């Protein structure tokens, strides 16, 4: 996290174009505390009053040492993830805890597998249900690019098309050791108050009625209600 790396502000607005966004990647390199941490207090008290900074640091330390994981199994990588939780690798040693079955009790979501079109909206929903601040570890090449299934007609080319990801752990599947390394890196980042900014991704959940009219929307107009949530995949724009 050197200071000589380019600084980019996190984007909070919906993109005009549906082209894939690289903002997350760029801004992840940005430094310092961002607004997912105590932004209300920060607003009230100004930039960095002494006591608040210390309290911030304390909070971050607490957060980093008690990360509640979401129990979230998708594909092959989840088997290695279970091995990471289980005997021998025992990720609990790092305060990373027994997995929580409910997203409302979880801080960290490990995305262990291939995201396909049908699951994308569900994953987004689960992510939205987690309380702030929340963090995501992308496990395996599938969450990076679609991995071995990158060319599939039904495969989302990386989980980052849908939700922001803090740490990528490459591998197919990554060994439990690698995942632990990733979790430790995340811990480090949380303790330093860093996180990837919330960027609106190319694939958003939107109300059907809000979509621009095109051939596809017209075709489906009879089947889908105006206010149903939909996710639109523009495969041609995918990386």
């Amino acid at each position, binding site marked *: 996290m050197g200071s000589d790396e380019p600084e980019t502000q996190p984007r909070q607005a919906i993109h005009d174009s549906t082209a894939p966004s690289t903002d997350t990647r760029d801004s992840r390199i940005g430094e310092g505390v961002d607004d997912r941490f105590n932004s209300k207090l920060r607003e009230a008290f100004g930039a960095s009053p002494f006591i608040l900074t210390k309290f911030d640091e304390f909070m971050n330390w607490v957060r980093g040492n008690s990360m509640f994981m979401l*129990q*979230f*199994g*998708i*594909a*092959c990588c*989840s*088997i*290695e993830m*279970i*091995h990471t939780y*289980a*005997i*021998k690798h025992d990720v609990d040693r790092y305060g990373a805890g*027994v997995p929580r*079955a409910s*997203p409302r009790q979880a801080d960290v979501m490990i995305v262990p*597998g*291939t995201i*396909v*079109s*049908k*699951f*994308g*909206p*569900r*994953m987004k*929903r*689960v992510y939205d249900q987690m309380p702030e601040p929340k963090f995501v570890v992308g496990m395996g090449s599938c969450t990076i690019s679609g991995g*071995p*299934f990158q*060319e*599939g*007609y*039904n*495969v989302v080319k990386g989980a980052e098309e849908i939700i922001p990801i803090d740490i990528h752990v490459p591998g*197919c*599947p990554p*060994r439990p050791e690698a995942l632990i390394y990733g979790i430790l890196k995340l811990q480090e980042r949380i303790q330093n108050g860093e996180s990837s900014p919330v960027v609106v991704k190319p694939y958003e*959940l939107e109300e*059907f009625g809000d*979509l621009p009219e095109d051939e*596809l*929307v017209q*075709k*489906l107009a009879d*089947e*889908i*209600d105006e206010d*149903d*949530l*939909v*996710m*639109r*995949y*523009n*495969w*041609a724009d995918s990386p």
Partner: protein
Amino acid sequence: MSTGLEETSDAETVDVTEAELEALIGDRALARDEHENAPGFVVNPDEVQSVLGDLKDEAGYDHLSCVTAQQYEDRYESIYHLKKYDDASDEVSIVVPTTRDDPVSESAEPVFRTADWHEREAYDLVGIEYADHPDLRRILLPETWQGHPLSDDYDQDKPQLVTLAEHENPLADDHHDAESDTMFLNVGPHHPATHGVLHVKTVLDGETIVDVDPDIGYLHRCEEQMCQQGTYRHQIMPYPDRWDYVSSGLLNEWAYARAIEDLADIEVPEYAQVIRTMGAELCRIASHMLALGTFALDVYGEFTAIFQYTFRDREVVQDILEDLTGQRMMFNYFRVGGVAWDLPEPREEFFEQTRDFLDELPAKVAEYNDMVTSNEIFQTRCIDTGVLEPDVAKDYGCTGPVARGSGVDYDLRRDDPYGYYEHLDWDVVTRDGCDNYARVLCRMEEVEESAKIIEQCLDLLEEWPEDDREVQANVPRTLKPDAGSEIYRAVEAAKGELGIYIRSDGTDKPGRFKIRSPCFSNLQALPEMTEGEYIPDLVASLGSLDIVLGEVDR
């Protein structure tokens, strides 16, 4: 070799010769079509039910193992791969062509219940329509999908819309129907008991389940498309590891290896077959351990003891497999015509490590029996719940421990021998309890049988003469099986019959690559097992089916 009950119904069926088949089908056969594995008969799209019905009732072909759909330049084709539960090597294929303009063919669902999902998949991916089908809608892809991805005019770059609307809040008022007072409940797709991303739509009347509809496709990773894009020689082999990913990798690889080796006439050296057999059985143990651990987790929330114990044992197996193959899960160790390399050096160490594991296994199995299967709570939850009668199991094309737990004595390792199994001494485990408990016991006993097999393989490998350790046959750099040759071959994977259909189009890539997944058929029987039972039994039944979504959805 069986230890359990022999199957009684249809037991008197004898081998049917090809001439008899021809006579049985008679005029309804438009032409003959030779498949490498079985005689094929081309029939009219409106005579499917009558032909399949006759084959089932009069010739004893009671196992519809797979339905393959594909598109040719001038027609669509559905192939029904039939087998017998009594004799798995007795096969016949029924080929049903339809025109491209009007791809309608009669559904086989009234004859074989299992055709329901298979035909839905064919409709979804290829676009053939089945008249008379009870519920022809998409199964793997979202309802709102446009086009059929395995048909040749599909444009992958077109945008698609997926809705979230089906996933309504189960607590909303409108889910209570005023008259019957039932409640609609979504289980999954993100739920700890579904073993992955399965969505079960359930309708409850009080605590009793009145309707169950598994909704799959949340992990449909286009495995068939991936395999159709890869070359036979090397590019396909990594994918099978990812079908049934709970460390059954080698078993899956064997399915592909067996199909392509039979298609391209490759003779695998005996030494490699022994290594394959050993590796495959190690995988079976790892897979059954996971099944047991997660099952215990499901039925009595056992995260601390059993679950961790089974994972401890899996770690040991994975270490052995890692030494052998170089990876913990995605082995990519089989090659067309053999295996990638010989046992790791020093061999003695490998033997010792594996034998240590086998020596400790009986004590561990005893421990599991102590803690799990003889546990009273466990028994209350499992005995007489999720009952699957043998006839129903057959109708749904169930295989593997699910079928054997219902007393169906069907194991391809014995019935359609491959590898080195023929020369080894082991038993097929069957149980006639038909319930969740029987299925779990079946798996536990299979672990012991697998250990027996591994032991014998180790003996053989240890004594194998050093100058005869050939691990790979001589296979040409580019494999191009004869154009038009077709084959369906299956192996006994951890979950049941894992079959591969390959049609060669004369290039170095398959023209059609179809995967018959055991979990897909087994899961289809879920409604039969759970309707009328209590909702907690749904969780137990799902656990004892031991599905892997990667394989259900492919």
